[in-house]
């Protein structure tokens, strides 16, 4: 069975990370998988060693490829750009994977629902969101994301250790990921004893955000304790999370909505304690004070309290580290996850 996964951006995001894991593991289930990207935003490093299996090109070139290469199934990941061209009996069945939490118009979802065989979503939370949008016109299946092996290697002490605990925030620096809330949380923490260092790991799509970030961090007296790693290669994220863990710190999400919460799952895989808003999909794998800390969504005070409590309690940190990693190994390992993806794809093919 030959499957082509299509995604609009080749960047350093979570989707690329999922695709990499699929490219590596689906062949063991008899599925020949390839990826197609519409735009190269500097994410080739994610596919280091798998370069032959990825391609970047326009929608027109993609459609030519789909027709000529004999794919059995095309899976579009949040890439509605291909839908207008996806007409004709000679085309393979189409699956739409809704990973993006960035929205889209209701009308587009209705049209999409008529064109696709199935919609895959990575969490129950996202299934309810998408199910409501497609209005029952297509089957919605939960297919969780997979965590790459480089996040699942043994957790060891590393010699390098930041001097102060680190509170890390990973993601695209935009409104949706709500970087401003992170700065507000940080501004509360700098007023408390023993504040952590604040690491922002990611880059903005809109270049104007750089100035906004600088000014907001400066105005809220966070700039002095801020370390910004602009566009860190995805390959280096496990090492980064190891440093955060070894510092006695944590990873936090302030995202307004997530389909899965990949950066948080990856942090848990590296035994790095996590602090997340009490909302889906996080509540599907983070149990408060058992596998992470939950805070009231949108509340800087609640989040800052959670951070303060965690950083002051090494025993709690150790407990959350272990339990968080166990959850990921059990539910999101490549073996478990790929088997499920393969099963769902095979079911559609058959």
């Amino acid at each position, binding site marked *: 069975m030959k499957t082509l996964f299509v995604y609009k951006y080749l960047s350093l995001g979570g989707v690329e990370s999922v695709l990499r894991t699929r490219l590596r593991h689906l062949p063991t289930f008899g599925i020949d998988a390839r990826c197609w990207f519409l735009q190269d935003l*500097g994410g080739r490093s994610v596919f280091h060693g798998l370069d032959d299996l990825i391609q970047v090109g326009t929608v027109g070139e993609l459609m030519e490829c789909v027709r000529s290469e004999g794919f059995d199934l095309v899976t579009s990941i949040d890439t509605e750009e291909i839908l207008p061209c996806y007409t004709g009996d000679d085309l393979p069945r189409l699956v739409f994977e809704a990973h993006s939490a960035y929205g889209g118009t209701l009308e587009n979802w209705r049209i999409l629902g008529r064109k696709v065989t199935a919609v895959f979503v990575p969490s129950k939370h996202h299934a309810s969101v998408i199910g409501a949008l497609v209005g029952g016109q297509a089957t919605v299946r939960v297919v969780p994301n997979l965590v790459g092996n480089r996040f699942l290697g043994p957790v060891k002490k*590393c*010699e*390098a*250790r*930041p*001097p102060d605990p680190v509170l890390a925030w990973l993601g695209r620096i935009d409104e949706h990921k709500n970087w401003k809330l992170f700065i507000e949380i940080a501004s509360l923490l700098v007023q408390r004893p023993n504040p952590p*260092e604040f690491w922002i*790991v990611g880059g903005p799509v809109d270049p104007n955000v*750089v100035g906004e970030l*600088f000014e907001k*961090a*400066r105005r809220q*007296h966070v*700039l*002095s*304790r*801020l*370390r*910004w*790693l*602009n*566009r*860190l*290669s995805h*390959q*280096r994220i496990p*090492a*980064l999370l*190891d*440093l955060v863990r070894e510092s006695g710190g944590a990873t936090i999400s302030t995202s307004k909505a997530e389909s899965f919460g990949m950066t948080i799952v990856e942090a848990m895989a590296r035994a790095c304690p996590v602090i997340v808003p009490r909302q889906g999909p996080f509540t599907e794998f983070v149990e408060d004070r058992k596998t992470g800390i939950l805070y009231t969504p949108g509340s800087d005070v609640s989040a800052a309290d959670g951070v303060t409590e965690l950083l002051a309690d090494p025993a709690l940190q150790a407990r959350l580290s272990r339990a968080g990693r166990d959850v990921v190994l059990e539910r999101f390992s490549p073996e478990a996850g790929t088997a499920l993806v393969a099963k769902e794809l095979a079911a559609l093919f058959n």
Partner: protein
Amino acid sequence: MKKSDDTGEGLSGGDEGTRGAPESGPLSEETLEGVLGERDALRVQLFQLDHSLAIRLVRGYWGLVNRWLPKGTGRRRVYDRLRGGVWKLGWAMRRWGRQGHIAACPETGEGSREAPSVPRSRDDLSLGVLRRLEQESRSELASIILSGTELREDEGQRPTQIVRELSRRHVPVVFGYWRWETGYWLPQNRLSEGIAQIPLDVMTSHPRVIADAFADCTRIALFTFPHPSFFELQATLNAAGWVTLYDVLDDWEEFHRVGQAVWYDREFEEHLVRSVDAVFVVNECLADRIKSLGASDPMVVANGLRPGIDRIRSPRLLPRGSVTVGYFGYLSPAWFDWDLLRESALARPDWIFYLVGYGVDVDAMGLPENVVFLGKVDQRELAAIAANWDVAIIPFKSDKLAEGADPIKTYEYLAMDLPVVVTGVNAPPGADALVDRATGLEDFLGSLERAHQGRKDFSEQRRSYAAANTWSDRVDQILEVVEEGRQRVREKRFLSGSVG
């Protein structure tokens, strides 16, 4: 105050010396080298100008005009009138547009806080040089130096000295220099030495291009002043695995307080201090200050000596006093203690005080006749002049600005075997016995007298101290921190995958 004609010429150049001056007779090797360097630079500029698209278009345009509108015809006269009007309009618009492009100079702080925007095509050209440097380098180490000054051999600033030393070791250097206007470009006349010169605003506008360079090397980026426009570039270099370093040369906050360095932002300096992998400072005073900004363990890497500065090329005899005192360097009104000098000269009329340098209108200082101003002097001539002195001085005001300084001239005085008396500044590390620090007029005069009487004492120690504190030693110190993973370099190496 007397202006001396003993030196014969009013030379042009910088603080610690200047370019070769016109001389009669055969040129010395160094002068010849300097003149040839200037000629080469001008030749490169001329070549770039001659081959620019604009010149080629203008040439083609005038060919067509002369062909279709021959001189002396009525058509040509109408054309000339129209062109004159358009030219005036264009000139007025250009002047208006330029007002928005003046940027703040890190040294003086003049102009606006914004870095200038840049035309893309010249950026590409400049960044193309970076790629060429990358291709030609065989070194396992690559470097970026972000400097508030230009790369000028005749001024001998610390960034220039570090660049020279790295270049001598065949380490490619991308030298980011400050410019006031976007149209100002330095010629790439040092590529053969492995040095590319790129305006800082071009570097900060293209952080990813810069960060992706020399990917297979150990890479160091040295920030020599805390300009807020470095925010994104530094973050990008950090993520790309560059070992980022902050070399604290001065107390920038004090410069800001006295009306210079208007761009200074304490929050950003705190950010820089904490987000680089290692911090260096020129003396202990700055170390304390930088610790207060959040650096846990800054390392003192003092200034140094460029060997050869003490060489007398042709002796020059100057009138001597019963005690002959001298100073060379920048005569900044911000830190030079003019009152102390004036009162000292009045109190000891049989002494002579020589001043070599620039920076103020010395005539306006109301100095007595026994203060002799020699103006700017070529750095290579300093040793010949200083050979007439009994004591060298650094009379700076006692304030934070001076406390944070480690004057390069101290090392140069010691290399020239001169006893040194200072006010305001401290002796370099390990030179307390060789540098007398005075406070107030009486103490200063007493120190000068003692230094004069003991002129020959510590001669050996002075020279050996200077010899052991060269710029080469300083670069060794910096590179050792990188190699041994001290401060936060180990973290960076772990993050970039070069250490487990």
